[in-house]
Each structure stands twice: as structure tokens, then as C-alpha cells.
């Protein structure tokens, strides 16, 4: 459901350098939200393709070149985003853009070489945002491996709250209960905020009756998620070992985090030199030189005994096949990384389980920023998450002083339909709000809604 753009919002002039997967996905999302977009790419065919498909203007050339930037109208732009394949070029583009205009610059930087000191880079170069999709997605994978029975885990409120997606299994206690019945049984601060059943998404009210096979999204303080899952009869033991197939950058980020948590990591990598590099960087990990797409190599690496497997080859098709293979030969928890959702309908049918899409993570972070910039008043979106094929959005707003929603009990606010105030972070304390709770200034409020495209907290009102 596309929200009609209210006249009070500003139209952002955005320049996007690089028409790769992420670039195109950004063009898609941002142009749909009504922004004026100019794309820049060296490859004329790509620019042609993008300008044919979307209502944007294209410039062919190197995005760091002054003439190209002038032609693309960087001087009049509000936001400059560089997502070419090269980190150095992205940084250079942003620096050049910052020099010639007062825009907010966003760069994608993926190599560990730079990403160790992101905040330093960001501060010194005056960038608004540096995004590292590989690192972000490996963090998401780590969160899932910590709660292996969940399908997906996303974090809100700077990691203090989590949104967890589970599938209600057969003969589970949740089956055939209304949310109102469940409330007292489950206790604690947990809120079920979105349910998908037979391809339809519901923002459930108290009378909503859960069924087995439902995909349920609940939100709760991070420390409570495990105990809640235990109470409803899920096994919540965190994995003790992980087999990573493919030694990409994402594998490095993932392995490093897992090792820090004390998980045993084994990486299978095809390229000898890369193996040696990895073993330098990750002395505690087991590095195996071999073809990860060979069933024998996998068996030798112990895929049948692994508690979790994460295929991270650069090729989506391989990752999907590896997931299917793993599901056949072992009971390990598998997390699949898919860079480009080519055939979502077909992939949906494969029952891959947990799927992580780095492109979406990047896009969501940037869209969140653009939306808060284009809101009429000061607005601050901390996190934006799209669920169920972009049909539902979970948005974390910071309540600004003077907002009309402040200090009114939630039950007296006239909220839109299909919208839920699911969680409030008050100075680090996570509240699952009842009807008497009020939003206070400086709170961060997590809204779950089917009205996609909210820009500011006031948009929750009818």
C-alpha cells in the first residue's frame, strides 16, 4: 500500500553513483517514494537500462569526476550516495561531492581494511553514513545462530530489543490460542506484532487466533527473547560450531564475531592464497582448502555433525543448492545469504528457512535516512525493517520534543488501522506499552505497520 505523499514533505534531490544490485534497489525504493533521482554509472548500457525502467535521469561517467558531478547536479543535491563496486571510488566520490555542495554523503565500504575504523573515517571525511552490508549481514547471521530455532532476528533500539520471527510448529502450545489468552500464560514483556498466514499479513489484535504453520513476528527486550522461546517450548541453545562454506569478506566478518562468542568455526575455501590469508586473520578458525560445492569435501569437513552451516559463496545459486543439500544430509541450522532475489516466488517454495539479504539491509538503512530527511519537521528514524515482501514495515522513530503524540495515553491516540506501537525504548529501558503508557520526548518508538512509507512519528495518527 503506497501512502499518498502529503504536501508538507520535501522532495529530496538524490544522486546515486553506481548502478549495481544495491544501486538499482535504491533507485527502485527511493523513486517510488517520490524523490528526484539522478544515477551515475560508467557503463552506458546500465544507465540506459535504469533510465528505461525507472523515472530517473542518468549520467554516464566516473562519479568522482568533477564534470560528471556537475552534470549530475551534485551542487543542488540533498543526498549523495555512492555504491560502486570499489570502496576507494565510493569514498573519493563522497569527498568530492562534500567539497562542492552541502549534501549528506553516504558511502558503501566493504573491505575489512577500512571498516575496522569506520567511525574515524566517517568523522574525518565528514560523511553522513558509511554502510558495510557484508558486516551488517554477518551480524544478522550471528543473531540467528544465537537463536537457531528462529527464522530471522533483527535488532532495534541499539540492540536492546529484538524482533524475532518463528514458525509455529505442529502441536505447539501457541496453536489455536488467541493473543488475549496467551497474554497471562506467557507473561513478561513480549508482543506479537505481525503474523503471516497463507500469504496474508495480519497485524493481530487481542482476538487473533494463532494456528500452526503461522509465521509469527514478536518483539521483546533482547535478554528476554530466549526465555520466551523456552516457555513456548522451543529449543534455544545457541550453536557451538559453525561450518562456513566460502571464504568471502562476509565469511571473515561472520567468523570473527562467532569466534569472539566462543563458537568453533570451520571455513572451506577454494583458493589457496585466500586460505592462507584467512588463517592469518583468524588463527582460531579451522581453514580447509577445498571445493565447498563438492559433497565429499563437505562430508570430510563434518557437515553431518555440524550444528550450523552458512553457505557464503559469491554465487546465490550455489548458496541455495548448498542449503538444500545440507537440509538433506544433516539437521544443522542453515542460514542462506542471497544477494539478489531473482525469483522470489520460486525461492519461497524451497523452504530455505532463514534467509539473509545484504542488499536489503543496505537499502533499508539508506531509505530510513532519506525518509527522515524528507519529513517536514525534524524526524529521526533509527531503524527501518521491511517484512514479508515489503508489505509490512517496522520503523523505529525517536520522539522529538513538541510532537503532538507526546504525553497522551496510547489508548486515547487515534491511530491508523493496521498499525501497532509495539515497543518503547526509554533511556535504555525497553517497555512493551499498554494502553495507559504515554510516549515521552527522547523515547524511541518502534511502530509495526502495513502503511509503508511513514516519515515521521506523527504519521501514525489518522
Amino acid at each position, binding site marked *: 500500500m503506497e501512502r499518498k505523499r502529503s504536501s508538507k514533505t520535501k522532495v529530496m*534531490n538524490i544522486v546515486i553513483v553506481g548502478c549495481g544490485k544495491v544501486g538499482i534497489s535504491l533507485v527502485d525504493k527511493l523513486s517510488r517514494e517520490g524523490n*528526484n*533521482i*539522478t544515477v551515475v554509472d560508467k557503463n*552506458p548500457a546500465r544507465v540506459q537500462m535504469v*533510465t*528505461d*525502467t*525507472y*523515472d*530517473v*535521469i542518468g549520467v*554516464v561517467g566516473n562519479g568522482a569526476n568533477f564534470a560528471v558531478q556537475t552534470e549530475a547536479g551534485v551542487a543542488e543535491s540533498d543526498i549523495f550516495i555512492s555504491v560502486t563496486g570499489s570502496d576507494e571510488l565510493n569514498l573519493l566520490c563522497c569527498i568530492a561531492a562534500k567539497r562542492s555542495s552541502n549534501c549528506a554523503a553516504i558511502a558503501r565500504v566493504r573491505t575489512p581494511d577500512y571498516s575496522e575504523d569506520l567511525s574515524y573515517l566517517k568523522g574525518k571525511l565528514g560523511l553522513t553514513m558509511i554502510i558495510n552490508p557484508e558486516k551488517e549481514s554477518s551480524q544478522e547471521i550471528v543473531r540467528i545462530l544465537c537463536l537457531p530455532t528462529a527464522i530471522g532476528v533483527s535488532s532495534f533500539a541499539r540492540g536492546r530489543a529484538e524482533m524475532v520471527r518463528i514458525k509455529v510448529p505442529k502441536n505447539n502450545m501457541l496453536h489455536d490460542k488467541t493473543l488475549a489468552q496467551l497474554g497471562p500464560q506467557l507473561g513478561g514483556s513480549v508482543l506479537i506484532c505481525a503474523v503471516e498466514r497463507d500469504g496474508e499479513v495480519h497485524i493481530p489484535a487481542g482476538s487473533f487466533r494463532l494456528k500452526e504453520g503461522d509465521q509469527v513476528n514478536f518483539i521483546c527486550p533482547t535478554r528476554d527473547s530466549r526465555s520466551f522461546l523456552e516457555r513456548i517450548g522451543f529449543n534455544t541453545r545457541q550453536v557451538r560450531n559453525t561450518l562456513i562454506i566460502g571464504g568471502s569478506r562476509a565469511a571473515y566478518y561472520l567468523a570473527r564475531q562467532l569466534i569472539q562468542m566462543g563458537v568453533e568455526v570451520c571455513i572451506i575455501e577454494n583458493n589457496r592464497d585466500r586460505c592462507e590469508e584467512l588463517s592469518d586473520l583468524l588463527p582460531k578458525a579451522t581453514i580447509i582448502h577445498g571445493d565447498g560445492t563438492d559433497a565429499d569435501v563437505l562430508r570430510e569437513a563434518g557437515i553431518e555433525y555440524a550444528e550450523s552451516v552458512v553457505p557464503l559463496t559469491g554465487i546465490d545459486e550455489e548458496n541455495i543448492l548448498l542449503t538444500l543439500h545440507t537440509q538433506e544430509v544433516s539437521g544443522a541450522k542453515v542460514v542462506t545469504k542471497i544477494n539478489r532475489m531473482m525469483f522470489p516466488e520460486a525461492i519461497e*517454495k524451497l523452504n530455505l528457512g532463514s534467509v539473509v539479504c545484504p542488499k536489503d539491509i543496505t537499502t533499508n538503512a539508506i531509505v530510513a535516512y532519506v525518509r527522515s530527511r524528507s519529513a517536514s519537521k525534524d524526524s529521526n528514524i533509527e531503524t527501518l525493517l521491511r517484512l514479508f515482501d515489503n508489505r509490512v514495515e517496522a520503523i523505529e522513530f525517536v520522539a522529538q520534543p513538541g510532537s503532538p503524540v507526546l504525553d497522551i495515553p496510547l489508548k486515547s491516540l487515534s491511530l491508523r488501522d493496521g498499525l501497532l506501537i509495539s515497543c518503547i525504548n526509554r533511556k535504555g529501558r525497553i517497555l512493551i506499552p499498554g494502553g495507559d503508557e504515554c510516549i515521552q520526548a527522547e523515547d524511541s518508538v518502534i511502530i509495526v505497520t502495513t502503511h509503508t512509507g511513514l516519515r515521521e512519528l506523527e504519521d501514525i495518527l489518522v
Partner: protein
Amino acid sequence: MNTSVIRYILGWVMLIEAAFMLLPCGVAVLYREQVGWYFLGVCLAELASALPLIRKKPRNNIFYIKEGCVATALAWIVMSLIGCLPFWLSGEIPSFTDALFEVISGFTTTGASILPSVEALSYCMLFWRSFTHWIGGMGVLVFLLAVLQMPGGFHMNLMKAESPGPSVGKLRPKVRQTARTLYLIYLGMTALEVVLLLLGKMPLFDALTTSFGTAGTGGFGIKNDSIMGYSPYIQWVVTIFMTLFGVNFNFFYLLLLGRWRQALAMEEVKAYFVIIAAATGVIMLNIGRGVMGFADLLRHAAFQVSSIITTTGFATIDFNLWPQASRTVLVLLMFIGACAGSTGGGMKVSRLLIILKTALREVHSYIFPKSVRSIKADDKALSDDVVRSTHVFFVTLILIFAMSVLCLSFENADLVTNFTAVAATINNIGPGLELVGPTGNFAPFSPFSKYVLMFDMLVGRLELFPMLVLFYPGSWKGTFSRPRQAKQA
């Protein structure tokens, strides 16, 4: 093919035409002309048939270049069929073929007329006839894009099909803004011309209709002798504005933004002015000083040259009587046409430049067989695709041209008449030479030849391919079959 989207677009085009038809109604009220009722009647009937078409939004918004071409070509045909009704129903142009010819000539900004005496028409008819130039000049679909919020990736494919030039770019990030900017420039320049003509003591009605004819580079006059009877001041104003409307509108946009340097560096615009100056010079030399004074000679030469190169077709003198070299220059100018991205027709200066540069490269690579050299326009390398399609365009134009001349030749008119009649219609100019010269008209042709010429006008205005796509059987393959349902697992 996505027929529901095409239906929707056609509905909107009809609605817009109906709205435009209210203007001649107003004129009829002012001059108390009874024939105005025909406009009101057609307008209401069109409104009534358009509303059901747009009531339902299209089921799916899938819209590729194929739909863009078909929608554009159909829109122009439908628009012409309806636009000719007032002429025909009122009996001011008794034959349907003639009425249709006149209106297609108007919308395509050709300005070729079948009327032996223009002055016999009533004011509201004259107004509508000139106003079709203004509508057709920038294009009705571009207008549609400017006023209507279209969903999805519609935009470029419609704009591409209707706008002239080898490659269509945008001025601003969104199609809607671009279309609005174009129409604002168009409207502003038309208004400016009206004011300047009024200052030259031209009556308001004449000033409006002449400005419409100039802005769309159409060329319908409201006098039998076109612009000949007006003062030299008025003729100069019209000359300057014809030239300006033949300039790529990007040029004006850059000027508006204050980017003078970039505007003046536009290769096509420079070449365009050089061609005008050179052609004027040659004609002045050819006619010589004996016949008239230098000022008159300059005025007539400049007027005729800019009238022909911008494909307007006004005349201040019967150039059919000029010496052969001057006549030949004018016929050559017919094919060059105005700049891409202007309201003019013809092959466009930018295409000519590309063709010349490729010819030059061919010569160069003949002596240096291994040399690599890219074709550039405004210091940017053009992709092989653009170069290839430019050549295909040229060849196709010549083919259609030759076939049309052949079709016309069965009437036993002389070759110059047939040749220039086709050249003047396919390039959207209007008057040709001999029988179809500035003082002649297209009435003597048989209905068959008239339909051939109508086709040429539409093909010329839409730059060949949208019209050809419409008649290409492959475009319609599978149009009426439903998508097959996926098998349920």
C-alpha cells in the same frame, strides 16, 4: 501487449482533446458563429466516450516500448479522426477525406492544405485549424505526462515514442517535471510572440493563430496569401520565432538555468544556425540584387529559409518562382529539418551531423584500415546503437519517401510536384513546389494520394517507427490471449 494501459491512455488523450475543443467553442461565442455548436457537440460526444475508458485504472502497469509506440500511434490517429469531425459535419470542408487531411496536416504541424480559399472558413474553424498545430507541436502525450501522474515506468516509453530526435533525454529527473518544463517554455515563447505581433498592430485573432502556427512549426495561415500581406516587422518577428522554435528546447532550458556557456556550446544548435545563414546567403546571391532591395531580399530569403528548415511552411513570397538553385536549396533544407528536441520535423540536424561524421570516419578508415574512432556529439561518444539507428532511420525515410512518390505518380502530375508534395508532407513542412507551391494546394490529388500523404505526415511527425510498429504484425501477436495460469504444485 497490455491493452488495458493503451485503452487508458487513449481515454486520457480523448479527454484532453475534448478540453482543447472548448477553445474554438469560445471563439464561436465571441464571433457569434452558429457552427460553434458542432465543436460543442463533438466535444461532448468525445467526453462521453472518453470517460468510460478512464474510469477504470489499468489492471497492470507493465508498459514497454512496444506499448509506448502503439499507444502513441493510435492516439494520433484517434485524435485526428475526432478532430476532423467539426470541419466535416459543419460542411465547411464537405469531403471527409479532405477534412481528415486538413486536421492531420494540423496535428502533425505540416500545414499542407486542401483548401483553395482559407478565408472562406469561419473564425472558430480557423482557430481550431491553427490550434491543432500548437497541440501537435509539443505533442499531446507529452502534455498528458505533464498533467497526469502516471504509475510505474510508463513515462519514458511514451515520451520516447512522441518526441523527436535520435536519443531522447530528460531535462529533469522526473518525466513529469520535464514535460512541464517543456510546456512552460513552449507556452512562454508562444505568449511572447503574440505580444510582439500585437505590438506590430496585428489583430489579436491573427496574432494568436499565427503564433500557434509558428510555435508548432505548422504553417497554417488564415489568409490565402499566408504571411505575404503583413508588414515587414511582423514578417521579421515570425522569422525569428520560427527559427527559435526549431532550436532544441534543451538550449532554452540551459539558458533558463543560466548555463550560457553550456547552451552556446551545443553543437547541433551551432550547426543549425550555420545552415540557416549559409542557405540564406546562397539564395540571396542566386536571386541577385536586381529584383528587389537588399533589405527585402534579406527578409524574404531569411523568412523562406527558416520557414522551410524549421518545417513551418509559412511564405512571404511565391518561392516557386525563384531561380532553380534557390528552389533546390529549399528542397534540401526540407530534408534536414530542425533540431532534435524542438517542435520542428524533418530528419533533424543532429542526425545529419551523425551521418556526416560517420561518412567522414568511413573515408578515414579507408586509408587507415585499422584506425578506431568514435562518433561524438557534444564531445560525448555516441554508442554504436545510436549511430546505427540513425542510419536505419535515414534509409527507412528514403524508402517510404520513394514508395510514396511512386504511389502519387499514377496521377500524371509532374515529378517536381510529386517529389516535393511527399517531401513537404513526410517532413511536415506544408508547401512544396509547382502545383503544391505556396500559392497552390493539395486539393487536386485523388483521395488515394491524399491517404498516402496523410500516412506520410503521421509517419514523419512520429519519426517513422511508432507508426511502423503499429502496422507490424509482430506487435500484435498474442494481444488477445490471456496469460496462462501457473500450475499448482
